[in-house]
């Protein structure tokens, strides 16, 4: 039994934590949040690129470091802890992974080196309005290589160079790569719950679009992409949840009420113990997801769903109860609690809400059960 990260991977984690402590203190996050004209931190992006993290799991042949997904998992966890205001997930977990999964050799050669260098930012454009976007509701269409439709919200849509767009061609859903710097693309920034991440409405009017993966395979491919992204996002969420617990613990130990630290009251101790339990369940599920992802195991859909559900629950709980533990000061703009509360909403909602993943998990369990 060797269900743990290697010493090298743990070393990378330690180094990543040190690097982000120096380069991404919450004062940096606040610069993004406090300035309505800014939606990300390009300087941090450049320094993260210089670390090689953007290409950690991209093969060396395409300009990456050629490490595995386990390395990406430890980086993700550290980025989650510091609420990093950069399009890492959109670019690395989604665009790069999707191209590695389904891209043609030409797409890989053209895009992956630029992703690894930080020159190309990605985004995923699926949602078209309130509620779940399904095959039945999908309106965006591609005709003769030209995309028309509206996508809202698109995380990092305002700053990305390349979008993966879900659209129909001949009545069948597919994924398409669209150059957002090209013709036929209008972007409009959106006000969201988490201003530390960019978001936009993208309006396409006959924008040139090239297929990613086979025609009509869009929904199946999207599921594959999202499974992989879900594992990595689960590490971000777990990192954030652990940080929220630490914040609550540190504050409870220094805050006095009724003549003693609030950490000495069982109401607080038990709340923090509940956070710890949820975080450990999330971490353990995320580890299994990491194993499945790294070995391309057939268990990926089930493992990713479980990781996603547990991490979403843990981060939500830790971020809201962190505010509660802080009391009034936790409800102020000046204290960092809301950064995690906001990010927990961003991460839970933009890659499929937990209830969708629960449905997906049970569907897979049903199938597995019937097959067995």
């Amino acid at each position: 039994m060797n269900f743990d990260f290697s010493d090298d991977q743990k070393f990378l984690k330690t180094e990543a934590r040190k690097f982000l402590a120096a380069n991404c203190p919450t004062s940096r996050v606040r610069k993004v949040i406090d300035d309505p004209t800014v939606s990300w931190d390009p300087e941090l992006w450049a320094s993260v690129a210089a670390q090689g993290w953007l290409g950690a799991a991209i093969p060396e042949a395409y300009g990456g470091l050629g490490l595995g997904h386990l390395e990406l998992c430890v980086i993700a966890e550290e980025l989650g802890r510091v609420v990093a205001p950069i399009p890492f997930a959109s670019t690395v977990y989604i665009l790069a992974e999707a191209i590695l999964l389904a891209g043609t050799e030409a797409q890989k050669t053209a895009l992956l080196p630029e992703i690894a260098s930080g020159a190309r930012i990605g985004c995923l454009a699926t949602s078209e309005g309130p509620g779940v976007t399904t095959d039945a509701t999908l309106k965006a269409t591609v005709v003769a290589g030209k995309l028309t439709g509206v996508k809202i919200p698109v995380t990092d849509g305002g700053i990305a160079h390349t979008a993966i767009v879900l659209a129909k061609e001949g009545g069948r859903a597919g994924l398409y790569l669209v150059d957002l710097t090209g013709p036929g693309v209008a972007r409009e920034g959106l006000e969201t719950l988490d201003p530390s991440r960019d978001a936009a409405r993208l309006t396409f009017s006959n924008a040139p679009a090239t297929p990613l993966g086979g025609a009509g395979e869009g929904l199946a491919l999207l599921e594959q992409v999202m499974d992989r992204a879900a594992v990595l996002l689960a590490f971000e969420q777990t990192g954030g949840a652990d940080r929220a617990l630490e914040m609550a613990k540190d504050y409870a130990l220094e805050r006095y009420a009724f003549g003693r630290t609030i950490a000495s009251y069982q109401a607080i101790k038990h709340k923090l113990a509940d956070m710890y339990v949820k975080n450990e369940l999330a971490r353990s599920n995320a580890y299994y997801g990491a194993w499945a992802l790294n070995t391309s195991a057939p268990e990926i859909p089930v493992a990713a769903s479980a990781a996603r559900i547990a991490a979403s629950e843990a981060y939500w709980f830790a971020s809201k109860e962190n505010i509660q533990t802080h009391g009034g000061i936790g409800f102020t703009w000046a204290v960092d609690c809301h950064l995690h509360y906001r990010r927990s909403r961003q991460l839970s909602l933009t890659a499929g809400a937990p209830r969708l993943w629960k449905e997906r998990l049970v569907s897979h369990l049903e199938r597995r059960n019937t097959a067995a």
Partner: protein
Amino acid sequence: MDFNDSSEEATYRQQVRTWLDANAPKSRAAADDGEGAGDLTAARAWQAKKAAAGYACITWPQAWGGQGGTPIQSVIFSAEEARYPIPGNPFQIGLGMCVPTVMNFADEATKSRFAAPAIRGDEIWCQLFSEPSGGSDVAAARTKAELAADGSGDWIINGQKVWTTGAQFCDYGIVIVRTDPNVPKHKGLTMFWIDMKSPGIEVRPIHQMSGGSGFNEVFFTDVRVKDSQRLGAVGDGWKVSLVTLMNERLAVGGATGMGWSQFMEAARDIPGMEGQSALKDHAVREKLADWYVQAEGLRHARNRTMTALSKGQTPGPESSIGKIVSAVQMQDLANSALEMLDQYGIINDPDLAPQDGGFQSSVMFAPGLRIAGGTDEILKNIIAERVLGLPGDIRVDKDVAFKDMPTGR
């Protein structure tokens, strides 16, 4: 990252499999209730077989009659053993907690007298800690031991213990008693081993709310024990008990019973809200997902613990979350199954209820599981204090002589 055995582990597992294949029982005795008390003869026979082959007390030092093996070997053996219809294990508390305490604190003669029969299963031990006045607060024990008036140096024990697992068939036990009421509660306790057949000991089964009687009350009336039965110094009973309880986490196994897969199986066959299978009800599916995720979280937390053991490291605190999650889940999951059955859910007849009435018995047993081996609340305190480093509760009885402590009824 993988789930594979190391080469030593693989060799050991193969050796265990070969032995089990030749020696493990092929069917479970009808009388066995799976909790150990059902068929003591079968349990003893299996224990003796394991002891003879070196598969009992694998991690005990060789000086105690153990194998000097590693925790991971013990885990491997248990996992492989569980694949066979083996009898229940009434030796767990004794071998996991009581006898190690004896081996740590008794004199050489006592140690050599007790180790081998315990390992073989000839003699079974129980742990007499909880009292009617102290469950979570074990140090509030009132059962007292006083020096005999005849100047023999013997001790006379009077009082009552409660929730003693297996007392009805145990041969020996370890008991924590108050020897000095004039000092604060933790300082006036002393530990003894006792012969459960001693005159003055009366064992009465407790009729549990779940209907069964797996636990007992044990009454002590002028029970005489020799000073040589003392484990540790007079007044050091609390420190000795910490050694016992340190082993508890390793001895208390995971909860068994109805889990997500039984729930899913039942849901498939039960009509739901719209006339189709209950497994199609969205509320049912959401809960099923939550339980699966919890169960998987625990399974992989255990895998992380195993990994630490496999590397010869001390497991991290993740191993502390198991009981609290599984006990709460047992109650919620079983209750949801009853709600899914609607009116039929009240039927407790195993011939009529799905899963042989497993959900009904889980609902009735779960309250006990949430209390046994550390209540939910005590476990949360432990996580908060030992894992997160939060301060201990304020103890108003800390510097008060036991006899002056507020006690209520």
